């Protein structure tokens, strides 16, 4: 069976969930070969094997952390040349997309970004994408070279399928362009203890109606009761009430959780673009005319400061 390269997204060997989704999708096309760059390959290998990696190609070098993107492209290209895969799959993070694009250009291959599903086809993998603020669904193929496809988080449910997953060292020679952009300093984001926004099964978001940074605790409390991530509309972020890294919408994150709860969000196109592929949508808004109600499975016309605290208590009581 043909091999499929899967670029591993991890934090010091702790494999992030989108990579497990990629391994699951990769198995529809061939045997997944994981590419692990940076420290922690040995601890990652067990997880990668559990989800179907037949092999883990590992490389560690200071260049990966000290310079932006290009050293990782050099390494992924080395893996590509070592394996001659049927496809290369990369998680659709900002960095993942940049790595994938540069690799595609180097190997003379077409690239598809932000796939939400992937299946084997007669003439190569077929990628489903959600476009124009999720108003359309397209199916596309790469027609030249080895398909390079980036896949969005929450595109598949990870399924275990134990394989060998043996770690092999990947020799990498860095090109002269690899040290072009220096990472002078890196400040890791403080963990909130909540799930990652794009990976979460449930997202609770607040908008203009939250009316102040100090009021976002209402959103956070409900999120914590549900084990959810916290999102914010552009209006709330632009007002400085919540960090941009939590923005859901066209210019922020696009999320596709099992449950999306929008509180005090009117539902402008800019916001809908980032959330309307969510499986179940719930809204709480004072304005019964708010366009968000066109999208919902369940809507409550009411004051979020009345409804959310009571809902939080209900959730806690029911969860015991």
């Amino acid at each position, binding site marked *: 069976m043909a091999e499929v390269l899967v670029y591993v997204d991890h934090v010091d060997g702790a494999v992030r969930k989108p990579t497990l989704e990629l391994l699951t999708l990769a198995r529809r096309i061939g045997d997944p070969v994981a590419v692990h760059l940076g420290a922690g390959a040995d601890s990652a290998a067990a997880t990668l094997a559990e989800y179907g990696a037949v092999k883990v190609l590992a490389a560690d070098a200071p260049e990966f952390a000290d310079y932006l993107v290009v050293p990782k492209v050099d390494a992924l290209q080395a893996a590509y040349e070592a394996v001659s895969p049927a496809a290369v799959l990369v998680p659709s993070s900002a960095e993942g997309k940049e790595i994938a694009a540069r690799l595609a*250009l180097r190997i003379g291959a077409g690239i598809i970004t932000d796939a939400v599903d992937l299946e084997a086809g007669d003439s190569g993998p077929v990628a489903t994408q959600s476009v124009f603020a999720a108003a359309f669904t*397209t*199916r596309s193929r790469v*027609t030249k070279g080895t398909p390079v496809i980036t896949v969005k988080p929450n595109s598949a449910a990870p399924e275990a399928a134990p394989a060998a997953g043996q770690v092999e060292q990947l020799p990498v020679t860095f090109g002269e362009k690899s040290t*072009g952009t220096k990472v*002078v300093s890196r400040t890791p984001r403080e963990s909130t203890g909540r799930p990652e926004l794009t990976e979460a099964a449930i997202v609770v978001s607040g908008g203009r109606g939250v009316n102040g940074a100090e009021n976002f605790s209402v959103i956070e409390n409900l999120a914590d009761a549900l084990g959810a991530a916290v999102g914010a509309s552009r209006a709330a972020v632009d007002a400085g009430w919540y960090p941009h890294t939590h923005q859901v919408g066209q*210019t922020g994150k696009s999320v596709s959780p099992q449950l999306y709860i929008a509180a005090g969000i009117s539902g402008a196109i800019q916001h809908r673009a980032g959330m309307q592929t969510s499986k179940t949508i719930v809204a709480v808004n004072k304005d019964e005319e708010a366009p968000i109600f066109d999208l919902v499975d*369940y809507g409550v016309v009411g004051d979020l400061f009345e409804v959310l605290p009571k809902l939080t208590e209900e959730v806690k009581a029911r969860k015991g």
Partner: protein
Amino acid sequence: MSLRIVVCVKYVPDATGDRHFADDLTVDREDVDGLLSELDEYAVEQALQIAEGRRQGGDDAEVTVLTVGPEDAKDALRKALSMGADKAVHVEDDDLHGTDVIGTSLVLAKAVEKTGYDLVVCGMASTDGTMGVLPALLSERLGVPQVTLLSEVSVEDGKVTGRRDGDAATEQLEAALPAVVSVTDQSGEARYPSFKGIMAAKKKPVQSLDLDDLDIDADEVGLGGSWTKVDDAAERPARTAGTIVKDEGEGAKQLAEFLAGQKFI
């Protein structure tokens, strides 16, 4: 020495309009109003600020705004010129219809090289394709560093520095010029063109280039030269109307019932 800044912009269908596909599954540009992509306004703004900073320091700078697109794409150039860019380059050729991002990066790279550059500034993504990979592709093609997704950018002593707010960390980046930069919507609000700016823009030069001018063969671009193919596009079915209740004190309880019924709690 003059700092030559080239800003790459895209003319896109209005995101608040009714966007759809043409029969050949390319983006329909006929039936919906077009405009300068909102995310590229931030790129124009940062380029203008860098140029203004240089001029205040007694150095020189020139901002060229560059687009690839049909005749109407001139509107995007006009908007950037009225914001304050000095001149424009428009790559227009019938053979470009249907070009994918790989092909577009080829055309832009050749046009940037022909124009001459020290710094290329892009937006973080277009509002229609939303891939966000063009700046990285340009960097790869031009063989210069990429300093991308910046929410803060400055140029000094032949170096570009900036802050990249990633999901996991905030990074301070630095590269020597020439370089390709992209800026996010957090980099600073874009200015509105003044009346004076709009009038001045009418007199600013717009250079037109076609594929011949850039030594690009027609089969390297367009739908035929695309390395990807869209097989089908379907309108997403409208969501079925949900239940909407008015909170008369029981809203939270009703919502909890719904969530429990869906097994979320």
